[in-house]
């Protein structure tokens, strides 16, 4: 899980490793993921989100690709 300066840099990185680029996430989207996952992490009642909650979090910020499904049997590739 890395930062990249641009989509071109992602393509170069993937090309050197022989893998297809995965769905890209913007910084504002990543902040929404970070707050959804971690904003209550220091609280006694905190817990990891369940699969349905995870799907809902990703969908809410526009990440509906099967890549983000926590229970997908397989990931076919970029869509």
């Amino acid at each position: 899980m890395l930062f990249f300066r641009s989509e071109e840099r992602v393509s170069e990185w993937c090309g050197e490793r022989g893998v297809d680029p995965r769905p890209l996430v913007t910084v504002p989207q990543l902040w929404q993921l970070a707050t959804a996952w971690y904003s209550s992490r220091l609280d006694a009642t905190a817990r990891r989100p369940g699969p349905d909650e995870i799907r809902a979090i990703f969908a809410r910020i526009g990440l509906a690709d099967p890549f983000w499904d926590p229970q997908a049997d397989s990931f076919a590739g970029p869509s």
Partner: protein
Amino acid sequence: MDFDTQVKISVYRHFADTGEAPSTVDVAGRLGCTSSEVSDAFTRLRLQRLILLQEDGATIRMAPPFSGVPTPHRVESAGRWYFANCAWDALGIPAALHQTAVVYSECGQTGEPLRLEVGSAGPEASNWLFHCLVPAAQWWVDLVFT
């Protein structure tokens, strides 16, 4: 609050207060129990995917978003430095602390440095991107690789 939750909160508070992973002795000292009891709790918390342990089975490698080992993803907040496990967790640290912060990371391809200020409403405008190679369903198969 049950014992495992007390241990979990103690682990996270230690990270937040020091930027470093607590040992079983540190947590035992906070809770007034034995380090063996804490070690057993660490194992149970690992099974719940709340922490990740080193190969010795006792040292905390990750208590996401915090990292117990140095990484290229660093966060400065309120004069304290933290290591994050990945780019996602680098933003997760200010989110967990509810504090403003500065994230220091780099481009995964070129090593170009990234400095990103995170205010109370979120990160400053940036056109950097986040890329994850491993599908969500496989993240915990090898969390260090992920």
